[in-house]
């Protein structure tokens, strides 16, 4: 048998390889189109992700300078190429046109053709989405009062992002991106996702609280149409007025044919007011509490526990001082988060630390695992509170 002859016989392709009968042989040959075929690549993935691919719900995302990630509607996976030193011969199914081999008329061997030798396979590892970049992108040009009242037309769209722009730039799934936008209280204005400038948010909340007093509205039954109408009259665009309701209120009744009803969210309002007070710098706790209580609207009570993850207290001599230290300003990757936490404070009690680490998510690692990995836990006596320090 001369093995260098061009490929002969019936072409069977992958089916012939996988369905080879006992006591029989097939020939494996280079395909007539054998070559590097760099446009062909292999991706190993979990069976459960297969339907997502078949229903076109999977995308690869990333900038040219980043490693690509694969996103399903809800999850993000790092894509890593795993090379092999083995010879992996890739065999496509037979070309339907050239098939049709008459068993009786020839004793030629069935042939399966190798289209390329693959250097390796891409594999997936679930990762936490890189939403910090979202904050960075949206913080470049927060929406300000000045922009809201300025004449349309001259606005530059540089540094502003539509949904599709964000999808292009962020290594996160749609669901994670939506969640990220919500957690930043971002709002879509003229097709662009924006965060509102702090001052502007203060202004509109102050105005809302003022209007509530002025009109003698109940903070538990705010009529959407009325609120939006009044805020519009105060000079706020309609979509911003609605956004304000979403940020500081909870919907209590979905209006069908009538206006929806909202209720002021005590915690969110109180936290916002506290942040506003502490924006200028640290303050003695008594002074802060006094100012805070005075700002809080009637029917709400400010409670220091609301400020978990927003404010830290430190003792200076005999006095306790409070200052802003917001979990939302911290990076979402555990290593960077813990590094900043231990720079802020070398030792943490659990009750102080917990609000700053509870939203950390690392696929495949429990919160205990996270603490073990990034902190050193000491407990001087069995009764005392455990203390966490840097590893």
């Amino acid at each position, binding site marked *: 048998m001369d093995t260098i002859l061009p490929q002969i016989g019936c072409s069977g392709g992958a089916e012939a390889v996988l369905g*080879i009968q006992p006591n029989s042989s097939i020939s494996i040959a280079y395909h007539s189109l054998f070559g590097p075929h760099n446009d062909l690549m292999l991706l190993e993935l979990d069976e459960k992700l297969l339907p997502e691919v078949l229903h076109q719900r999977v995308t690869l995302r990333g900038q040219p300078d980043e490693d690509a990630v694969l996103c399903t509607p809800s999850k993000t996976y790092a894509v890593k190429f795993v090379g092999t*030193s083995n010879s*992996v011969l890739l065999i496509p199914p037979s070309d339907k046109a050239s098939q049709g081999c008459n068993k009786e008329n020839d004793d030629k061997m069935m042939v399966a053709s190798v289209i390329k030798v693959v250097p390796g396979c891409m594999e997936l590892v679930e990762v936490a989405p890189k939403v910090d970049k979202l904050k960075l992108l949206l913080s470049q040009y927060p929406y300000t009062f000045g922009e809201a009242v300025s004449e349309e037309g001259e606005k530059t769209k540089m540094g502003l992002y539509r949904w599709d722009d964000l999808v292009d730039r962020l290594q996160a799934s749609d669901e994670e991106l939506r969640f990220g936008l919500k957690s930043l209280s971002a709002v879509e204005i003229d097709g662009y996702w924006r965060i509102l400038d702090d001052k502007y948010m203060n202004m509109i909340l102050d105005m809302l609280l003022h209007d509530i007093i002025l009109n003698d509205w109940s903070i538990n039954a705010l009529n959407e149409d009325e609120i939006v109408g009044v805020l519009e009259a105060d000079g706020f665009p309609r979509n911003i007025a609605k956004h304000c309701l979403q940020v500081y209120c909870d919907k209590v009744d979905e209006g069908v044919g009538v206006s929806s009803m909202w209720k002021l969210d005590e915690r969110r309002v109180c936290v916002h007011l506290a942040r506003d007070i502490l924006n200028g710098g640290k303050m003695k706790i008594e002074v802060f509490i006094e100012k805070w209580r005075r700002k809080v609207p009637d029917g709400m009570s400010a409670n220091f526990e609301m400020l978990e993850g927003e404010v830290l207290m430190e003792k200076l001599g005999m006095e306790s001082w409070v200052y802003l230290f917001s979990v939302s300003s911290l990076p979402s990757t555990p290593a960077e988060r813990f590094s900043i936490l231990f720079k802020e404070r070398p030792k943490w009690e659990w009750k102080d630390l917990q609000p700053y680490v509870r939203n950390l998510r690392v696929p495949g690692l429990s919160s205990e695992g996270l603490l073990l990995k990034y902190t050193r836990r000491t407990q001087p006596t069995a009764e005392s509170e455990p203390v966490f320090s840097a590893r």
Partner: protein
Amino acid sequence: MHIQVKCSCGEGNCPEWAIVELQGVVEAQPSFENRLQSLQIGVLCRPSSQESYTFTIGYHELIGTKVSLKKPILVLKKIKLRNEDEEEDGGDVDATRVELDMIGIIRHKILFKTRPKALISSKGAQPSAKEKASASSSKTPH
């Protein structure tokens, strides 16, 4: 960058591809190096009803088995599409969009983990095999 991964075959119709994997490198004789197309590599044989296989390449024989993959492997083909609204931004950005089309799925491979074994040692025979398998025994198969 935002690349859609899809399958145009229709539900459940994506064809199965196959992999034959062996240790080391399959080399053709230098004279054939640049024109491998349609050359035979070897003969794959299933000697019994078991999922055990031999692969004969030239005067070497490999022994292997059929393996079901724990996770399926997709065969993706990169497809360049012309961008409809390439004027946008007016820049020199690449005007082509890329999609990855799933053109096949791999669920099984025939894996030869053994080093090749010489079939014939007789010096009289003129070797006609133009491919030889050179094994690297220290590597564990992937």
